[in-house]
């Protein structure tokens, strides 16, 4: 536990600097003020009446949609890309052309296509998560040792057996890396997407922007904290899930 001591000391120093007025609290609120801001988000809400847990739920809902679609398309396409060299050759140039466009650069066109709201947000998140999932899955299949495929063939496995019993489980570690990276990008993309407007009036990004509009740095930082903690929890859930699925590593 003693390794958390520096963190504690830093927090104390921060609090003292704020109390002494060295750092004005409209620039950086003190840790205690941030906690009070968090309390206000939970009880009063920002804007008032819109409570924190509803913002979280809306954000998670958007991520769940975008991320699920990214997985539903990215994993099968990635498996196909890894398995069929021709498919890989045809798809790669398209992927490499679209992938460098930041998801946020899609926001204007997404709004034109899908309007402001759930669907455009899910689309942006999908774009963020799709490529890490796709490429990790494909490279996972390619990383399966050919000798394992040979071994399966000498044990009478046909193409379908090899795909389901060798390539899919063999690329699972890599798929999980893709899922975790994809989820990280999805979460980052979400908040940025919500900055640029939401129709429903809920969402963590929207909440932070509202706090900025009415000059509440304590609630801005508290919102940032919430985003970080949720990202951490989601990643931790993924790792726990992976450990259950693959107890051998």
């Amino acid at each position, binding site marked *: 536990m003693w390794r958390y001591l520096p963190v504690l000391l830093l927090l104390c120093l921060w609090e003292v600097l704020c109390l002494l007025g060295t750092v004005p609290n409209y620039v950086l609120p003190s840790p205690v003020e941030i906690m009070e801001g968090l309390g206000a988000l939970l009880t009063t809400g920002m804007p008032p009446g819109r409570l924190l847990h509803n913002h979280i739920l809306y954000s998670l809902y958007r991520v769940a949609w975008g991320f699920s679609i990214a997985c539903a398309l990215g994993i099968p396409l990635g498996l196909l890309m890894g398995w069929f060299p021709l498919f890989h050759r045809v798809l790669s140039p398209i992927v490499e052309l679209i992938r460098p466009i930041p998801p946020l650069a899609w926001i204007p066109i997404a709004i034109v296509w899908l309007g402001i709201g759930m669907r455009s947000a899910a689309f942006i998140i999908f774009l963020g998560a799709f490529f890490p999932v796709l490429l990790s899955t494909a490279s996972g299949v390619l990383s399966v040792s050919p000798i394992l495929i040979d071994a399966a063939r000498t044990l*009478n496995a046909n193409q379908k057996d090899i795909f389901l019993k060798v390539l899919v489980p063999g690329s699972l570690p890599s798929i999980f890396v893709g899922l975790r990276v994809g989820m990280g990008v999805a979460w980052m993309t979400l908040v940025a997407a919500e900055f640029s407007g939401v129709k429903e009036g809920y969402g963590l990004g929207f909440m932070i922007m509202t706090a900025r509009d009415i000059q509440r740095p304590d609630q801005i930082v508290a919102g940032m904290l919430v985003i970080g903690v949720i990202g951490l929890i989601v990643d931790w859930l993924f790792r726990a899930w992976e450990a259950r699925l693959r107890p051998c590593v």
Partner: protein
Amino acid sequence: MHLELIGLGKTFVNGAQNGEVRAISGIDLMVEQGQFVSIVGPSGCGKSTLLRIISGLEKPSDGKVLLDGREIVKPTHDVGLVFQQYALFPWRTMAENIEFGLEIMGMGKVERRAIAEKYIELFGMQGFEDRYPSQLSGGMQQRVAIARTLIMNPKLVLMDEPFGSLDSQTRNDMQEFLIDLRNERNDTVLFVTHNVDEAVFLSDRIVVLSKRPAKILRTFEVNAPHPRDRTSKDANDIRREVIGILKQERMSASPVDNAVHALRKFSAVRR
């Protein structure tokens, strides 16, 4: 069981240099039921390629492989192959690895586990059923790989330097284990190795291959009963002779090697 290799040859096309590499050339060989035949040869001579062709993983360029008179054109569970690198599925437990072939056949979980348990007992691996390959020693991993192959009751078992990456003590143990296993099951084995001692200790017959393109240089019959004395005079005589042939093979450079050598010299001068 009756295996016949007729005029087997393999040429690899090297795309980059537009050249051809002849790996195997005109191999004729017969193996009868219950025989243990070792194939030794200089490293890189195409021994593994030969096994891959017999297993059906690779197609020959010339000649054919006949198992009980039927040509082998693709992998079948009649021919099992044990790899040097074990090739176990790292995400499957020991028992699940051994069951793989039965699972592919569509056998039910309870039934195949019962059969796997028999093999695990025969191989002396009880208590490790739920371990993953990474949690097993090298010797144990190779025993799992052998069990995974034998559970399919192949007519012919191919082994590609199966003990090549084991330390010498484990290697000796595994050789003795293999002898015991043969007494128990009377499998027909075609065993590739570069270790002459191993070949002399295990085999009924030793086939010595030349360097690339591999062809059969000589065949030795070893008639000593098992268990064999590794240091007996007969064993030493065969060993000396085989080692002599292999040494001679290494000394005489092939035309290809000569050409490569000349080319290297030439480029060194130009630099």
